[in-house]
C-alpha cells in the first residue's frame, strides 16, 4: 500500500493512479476500474434490520419497538470479495435501487493533482 501511485480515498478504498483501479485498503484486492463504480466488484447481501437493531420492547405487544420496521427498511451490506471487510452499509426501502455510483471521482483530475504533488 505504500506505492506512490496508490491514493487512499476512503477508510477502505484506494485508487491506483497508474493502473486506474480501485483497491481494498485492507487486503489490496483489486475492485475494478476507478472510472467505474467500485461497488460492481463487491459482494452484497440483504439483512433484516432487526438482526442488527434488536427490538428493545416486546414486538408482540407494541407497534414501535426501537427496531426498524422490516417491511419498510432493509439493510444492505457491501463486503470486499477477498477479505470480507464491510466497506459500506445502506438502509433502503425494499426493492429501492441501490446507490451503485456513490463515489465517482474525476480520475484525470486526481492524477493531475497527485502528479503535481510529487513534482
Amino acid at each position, binding site marked *: 500500500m505504500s506505492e506512490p501511485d496508490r*491514493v487512499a480515498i476512503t477508510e477502505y478504498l484506494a485508487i491506483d493512479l497508474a493502473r486506474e483501479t480501485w483497491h481494498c485498503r485492507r487486503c489490496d484486492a483489486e475492485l475494478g476500474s476507478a472510472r467505474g463504480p467500485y461497488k460492481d466488484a463487491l459482494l452484497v447481501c440483504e439483512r433484516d434490520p432487526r438482526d442488527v437493531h434488536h427490538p*428493545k420492547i416486546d414486538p408482540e405487544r407494541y407497534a414501535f419497538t426501537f427496531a426498524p*420496521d422490516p417491511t419498510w427498511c432493509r439493510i444492505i451490506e457491501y463486503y470486499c470479495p477477498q477479505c470480507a471487510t464491510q466497506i459500506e452499509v445502506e438502509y433502503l426501502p425494499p426493492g*429501492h435501487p441501490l446507490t451503485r455510483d456513490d463515489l465517482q471521482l474525476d480520475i484525470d483530475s486526481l492524477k493531475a493533482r497527485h502528479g503535481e504533488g510529487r513534482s
Partner: protein
Amino acid sequence: MTQTPTHGHSHGHSHGHTPGQRSLIEKFLDENVLYLGPDPAIMGDHSVSTPTAREQAAVAVWKDKPEELNLIRNRLQTACNESFDMVEQMGAAPGAKWGDLISGIFSCQGDLSLSSAGGVLVFSVLAQHPVKFVLKYWKDDPTVGIREGDIFMHNDARYGNIHNTDQSLFIPVFDGGEIVCFVGAIVHEGENGACEPGGMPGGAESPYDEGLKMSPLKVGENFEFRRDLLIFLQNSVREPKLQLEGMKAKLHACLRVKQRVEDIIRAHSVEAFLATVRGTLTDTEMEVRRRLRTWPDGTARSVVFADSTLRENVLIKIRCEVTKRDDELIIDLRGSSPQFLNRANNTVLASMKGMLAQLFLMFVWPDLPRNQAVFAPIRVLTDPGSTLNCSPEAPNAQSMMTFFPAFTAVQLTIPKLLYSAGYKSTDIIACWYNMITTFVYGGINQHDEFVGNVCADLNGMGGAARATRDGEHSVAPIFASMADIGEQELIEEEVPMMKIVPHRVMVDNCGFGKYRGGHGYQQIATHKDTGAWGYMTNFIGSKFPSTYGIFGGYAPGCYPLCKVKGVNVFEVMKDDRALMRYTIEEIMNERPFPNARYSSHHGGLQFELGQPGELYMITQGGGGGYGDVLERDPADIVRDWRDGIVSRRVIETMYHVVMNYDTGAVDLEATQRARAEERKRRLARAVPFKEFAARWTQALPPAHLPYYGSWDDPTVLHLGAPARTCPADAIQAVMMPDPKDVEIERLQAELETLRARLA
C-alpha cells in the same frame, strides 16, 4: 395566496408605450403594490452582496494593514460573544438560556459578517434576509424608513428564519448619517401563539396555524419599543411576559454590540470598520474556495428517508448528489419528495440552506468565522414545490423534519470527498443524530401562569463516530455548537413537569462500528400539581432510522414515543416504591403499574393533555457508527461493557468479541477465530453486486409503502402510491387526510364487517 406574493409586477405591461407613458405606468405600479410578500430575489440568493463603492475604497486603503484589521475583527468577535452571553443570561426562554441563539454584525448591505462563536450556527446563513428586506423596501418608504434608534423585528420563516418560533431583532448603526452596519440577535423564543403551545406546532395544517407572523417590522424608535406594537405582539402569544422579556434581552444585547462598534469606529476610523466587516466576508469566501480546491473533483451520492410527517408514517425520500468541481460545491437535492400542503414538515429553501451551512461551520470547517460567506461557494439545486423548497402556502413550523434529513444526506456524502482532501480542519465524521427528541409542553404551571415551550434537553444529541475515536454521549445538538441541556432543578421551579428519569444512557443506543456513535439518553416525564398540562413530541425515525453510519458503520436504531396512561404513578407508588423502574425497556416489558395502559407510537405527538402521574417516555438518539464492526478494538468493547452501554447480544452477534463478562478479560485468540468465522459467513451469504441488484431492485415502490419522491428516475416523483406520479418540474402538492378520519374510516369498515358477520 396561490403563488409567491411579491413586489414583482411585470415590466412587460409597458409594451407598446412611449418612454413617458412607461414611466407613468411604472410609477403607478410602484406606488400601488398590493402586498410585499417574501421576495424571491432576496430569499433565493445566499451569495455575498457586491461591495459598495465606499466599502471597496475602505478595503483598498486598509489592505496593507492586516494586523490592525485583525485586531478590529477580534474586538468585533468578542462583542458578538459578549452579546450572546447577555441574551443567554437575561433571556427567559429555555432556548435563550441554553444557547439556542446567535448575535452578530451585518454589513451595511445586510450580509452577516461576524457572529457569536457558539449557538445556532444555522442562523449564520439565514439571518440576513429580513435585514435585506428592510433595506430594499423600508429604507426609502416614507411610511417606514430607517433612522437612528429604529428597532426592527421579524419571525416569519418565509422572510428568512428556521421557523416561526425564532424571533430576530436588529438595529441599524449610523455614522455621519450613513448606515455602516446592522447588529442583531436571533433567539428560539418558544411560544408564539400557534395552534399548539410551545411555538413548533407539528399539527399545523396551514401557515396560518403557525402563530405569530411578523414580516420584517419596525417595532420601535429612539431605542424604545412602541407600546402599541408591543401589546399587539404580547396579545398574540400565550406567554406575554416571555414576549416582552425576549424583546428586551435582544434589544439590550444589540445596544451593547452597537456601543462596541462605535468604540471601534472612534478608535480606528469608520473606513477601518467597513474594511473589516467587508474583508471578513471576502476573506472567508476566498478561504473556503482555497480549501475546496484541495478536495478531489467528483460526485458523491446518497439517499435518505424520513419516515413521518409527524401526523402519520410515510416514506419521504431525500435524494442527494454532491459534486465538487474546482472551488465550487454543488448540492443537488432534486428528485426529493413533493411538499405536503397540510403538514408542517416542509422547509423554505433558505431555511434548509442555513441547516446545510451548519454542516460546514460545525463539522467541516469549525475554524472559520461564523458568517454567510462560508456557504457562498456552495450551490443548492432543488425542485420548486418539493418538500425541500416549499411554496409560501405550505406550513413549515416543523421544517426540521425534512431539512435535518437533508443535512444527513449531505453529511453522508461529504466524508467520501473530504477523506482524501489535501486540507482538513476536522476529523472525518459519520452522521450526527438529527432529531429534536424532547418534550414540548403547555399548560398551567405551579405559579398559575399559562406557559408553553420546549425542553432544552433536545441539545443532548448523541455525537457521531469519527475516523479516530468513538462518538461522545449526549454531547451537542446537530444545529448548534456549545449549547446546554439545562438544569432539571431550575426547570422544575418553573414548570410542573418532573423527569423521573431525566437523562439515563440506554444500552446499545448508537450506531455500531469500528468506532461507535455516542449514545443518547432516555427520559421519563410526568407532572403533578397543575390544573392542565400537556405534551408534544416532534421527531421522526420510529420505523426507519433517521441517522446513518459511514464506511461500513451502522445507523443507530429507531426511536418510539412510549406512554403509560390510566395511572397516577405518584398515587400507586406512595406506599410501594418498588414499583418504579428506571428504564423504558423495563417499564414497557415488565408493566409494573397494574391496570395502566402501555403503548408505543411514532414520534409525532400533537398536543395531548395528560393526567397527573401518567408517563411519557422518549429516547434521545445515538450517533452513526464508523467502519466495520469487526475492526473494533476488543478493549473498547470491554470499556463499553463496564459502562453498561453495550449488551452481551451485541458483543457476541455484532462485534464477535469473546470475553469473560465478570472479569472483563478478552480472549483475543477466540475473538480472532470468531471474527474469522464471521468473515466466512459474510462471504457465504453475499452475492456479486450485479446478481444481487438484479434480484433486489424493483421497478416501482412496493404497494404497501406510502412512498413520496423519486424511485429510480429523479424527474418522476411518486405521490404515495406506485401508480400516482408527477413530473419533478411540475410538482403536485400532497394533501393528507386527517389521521383521525383515516382511523374512523378503518373502524367503520371493521364495524360493517362485524355487523355483516353477525347478520
